[in-house]
């Protein structure tokens, strides 16, 4: 199955998301309890993940110490995981 970037005729997702849908599907199904996933639901998950990355990066940068130096560090990210309620699920990563 082609990556999302060069995806073909499934929702025309080559325009919509830049993450590879096939990989996301595999990650989702690596949880044994997860049943089958509708194709559109997959696209939505990909989009949400994209937003997540953008949000995580932006949030960590803004609240982090590296802002003056225009740098994003590991610590910026881990601080976000600990302090932000939304991102707390990352605390074990």
């Amino acid at each position, binding site marked *: 199955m082609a990556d999302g970037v060069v995806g073909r005729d499934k929702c025309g997702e080559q325009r919509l998301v830049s993450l590879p849908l096939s990989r996301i599907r595999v990650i989702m199904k690596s949880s044994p309890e997860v049943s089958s996933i509708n194709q559109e639901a997959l696209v939505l998950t990909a*989009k949400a993940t994209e937003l997540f990355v953008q949000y995580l990066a932006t949030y960590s940068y803004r609240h982090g110490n590296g802002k003056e130096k225009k740098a994003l560090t590991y610590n910026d990210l881990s601080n976000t995981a600990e302090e932000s309620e939304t991102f707390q699920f990352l605390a074990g990563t």
Partner: protein
Amino acid sequence: MASSSGNDDDLTIPRAAINKMIKETLPNVRVANDARELVVNCCTEFIHLISSEANEICNKSEKKTISPEHVIQALESLGFGSYISEVKEVLQECKTVALKRRKANSRLENLGIPEEELLRQQQELFAKARQQQAELAQQEWLQMQQAAQQAQLAAASASASNQAGSSQDEEDDDDI
């Protein structure tokens, strides 16, 4: 932070895709390698989080397949409600594209000719056109050759008649 163990957790979004997203989100910002690696792993965690929640919602709804609605509800309940409007936009685009495609297919079907057959016909037409062009080119080339030969002959006989002046009379007799 502890690293995840187990083979399934080695499965991550490709690093290049993450790098690209980070670059687009924070242009001109230096991002350390270990930070990038962390983002990659966070992605995987996020996907697991969403899919588990969506799966639970799906089970409660007594449906067998996780649907876009389940994903949206999962985002809401996990505190990612701010993503929902953009995610819904993508869903809308999805449906629009799918609808266009269905319409296009049914139009084709109404012609009574399935797509593969149309493709085959197209290939045939192309092959025919190519052949015609090739034949045309060959004809032209032959004509050029003939013309060149005639020109050569004409030039040869012209120089021959110049050289053999004494046989001119005989040749004149042949001329009509």
